[in-house]
């Protein structure tokens, strides 16, 4: 089937636009729905506070909407874009822009619903109007942090749309598509995860208004560490977009580039969300017992650091895939081995990342209740997390076998 390149580019732009707003709408809608459901529950508990709660819900929902608005903007741009030199690379770049923005908005929309919902719940028992307005402020700060992954995804999407990537090279086309997938998947976990500390911090301020400073600081530290996986994904996406390996053969480089993007992108989902779970438990623990802030924050950071290891494995496999160097292949199998290595590491890192986060959640919250046993709990958390990592290590072993032995 002979197809006009102009039509192919238009096709890619329209599909990309559809994916951008299609996926992008999911997260924000769920997050806002959560906020509204919590607000309803809160009003039924204390109808006298309904005006405060409804106001807070609407502010929170407006911010949660922003990820979907980024996706809408990118979708509309993709519908009306008219590239200067339509090639297969332009087509891939436009499709990748849509994928990056669509998937990238999912997590942030969902994540920024948590602070909005928890703030509404916590407002029921708060009388002091100063505390109420402080809660709204902290909710806004934490929602703003939640938007970071969506903004990174938007930056990558806009670069893909408006930067010229040179002539019609099919390897470059695959690399750009992979960059879009990497950034899109990579933003999901960080976006959703960084909402958890925000929600716990807002709820904690409602319970312990005097711990507001401690809670805000802890929330910001925890949410910042959550962003690491999304930043790793952006680094790999930028390498895929801008590193020029020279004139490389299509087979097996297509598979190496696609595998590199999927490895870090998928691996970032688990680590991002797992890190967020640990941070959320830490904010809750500090609200329960503000005196334990030092030891709780330390346990949280250790737990988060271990939860990051799956994404670091993913990053390692991506770098090997990108820079190992391959001769031209004339069969399908060598390429498939590289793609399989990326898929294996990417999916294999999701579970251990989330699992390490779950283990850290409970350890952190019990350190806050039972400070004198902090050392014992930290040791137990590390043992549990180490065992949790084992399947990620198996995945890495299989990926390395696929890369070096086969």
């Amino acid at each position, binding site marked *: 089937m002979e197809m006009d390149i102009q039509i192919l580019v238009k096709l890619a732009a329209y599909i990309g636009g559809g994916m951008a707003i299609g996926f992008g709408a999911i997260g924000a809608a769920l997050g806002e729905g959560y906020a509204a459901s919590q607000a309803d529950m809160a009003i039924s508990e204390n109808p006298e506070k309904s005006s405060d709660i409804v106001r807070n819900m609407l502010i929170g929902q407006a911010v949660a909407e922003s990820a979907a608005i980024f996706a809408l903007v990118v979708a509309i741009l993709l519908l009306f874009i008219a590239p200067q030199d339509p090639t297969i690379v332009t087509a891939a770049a436009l499709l990748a822009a849509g994928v990056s923005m669509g998937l990238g908005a999912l997590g942030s929309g969902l994540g920024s619903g948590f602070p909005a919902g928890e703030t509404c719940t916590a407002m029921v028992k708060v009388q002091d109007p100063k505390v109420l307005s402080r809660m709204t402020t902290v909710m806004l700060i934490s929602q703003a942090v939640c938007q970071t992954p969506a903004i990174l995804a938007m930056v990558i999407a806009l670069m893909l749309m408006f930067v010229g990537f040179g002539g019609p090279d099919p390897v470059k086309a695959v690399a750009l598509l992979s960059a879009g997938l990497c950034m899109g998947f990579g933003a999901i976990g960080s976006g959703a995860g960084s909402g958890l500390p925000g929600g716990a911090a807002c709820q904690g301020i409602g319970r312990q208004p005097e711990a507001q400073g401690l809670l805000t600081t802890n929330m910001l530290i925890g949410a910042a560490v959550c962003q690491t996986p999304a930043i790793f994904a952006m680094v790999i996406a930028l390498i895929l977009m801008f590193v020029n390996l020279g004139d490389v053969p299509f*087979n097996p480089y297509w598979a190496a580039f696609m595998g590199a993007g999927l490895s870090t992108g998928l691996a970032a989902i*688990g680590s991002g969300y*797992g890190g967020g779970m640990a941070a959320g438990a830490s904010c809750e623990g500090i609200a329960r017992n503000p005196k334990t802030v030092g030891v709780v924050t330390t346990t949280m950071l250790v737990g988060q650091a271990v939860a990051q290891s*799956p994404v670091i494995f993913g990053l390692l496999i991506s770098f090997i895939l990108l820079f190992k160097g391959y001769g031209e292949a*004339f*069969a*399908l*199998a060598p*390429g*498939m*081995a590289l*793609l*399989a*290595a*990326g*898929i*294996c*590491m*990417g*999916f*294999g890192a*999701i*579970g*251990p990342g*989330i*699992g*390490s*986060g*779950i*283990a850290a*959640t*409970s*350890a952190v919250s*019990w*350190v806050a*209740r*039972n400070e004198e*046993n902090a050392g*014992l*709990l930290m040791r*137990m*958390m590390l*043992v*549990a*997390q180490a*065992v*949790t*990592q*084992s*399947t*990620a290590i*198996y*995945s890495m*072993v*299989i*990926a390395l*076998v*696929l890369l070096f*032995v*086969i």
Partner: protein
Amino acid sequence: MAIEGVDLIHAASYIGAGIAMGLGAIGPGVGEGMVGAKACEAIGRNPSEAALLTRTMLVGQAVSESTGIYSLVVALLLLFVV
């Protein structure tokens, strides 16, 4: 690029190994995390039983590891035997 029978079989076994290990690693990862979380909670409630709880946690995790090891075995079989 000509795709022949043997090449196709190799390609399929590589991608199959990747998917087997990748997807197979998700469940044990989450499950072992849950075991670890409950063990930490139990130690928080009753620190004097730490040794018993650690042992129970490790046994439980080892059992939930089994499906991950099945995936590993299947992946290795696909890579080296099939």
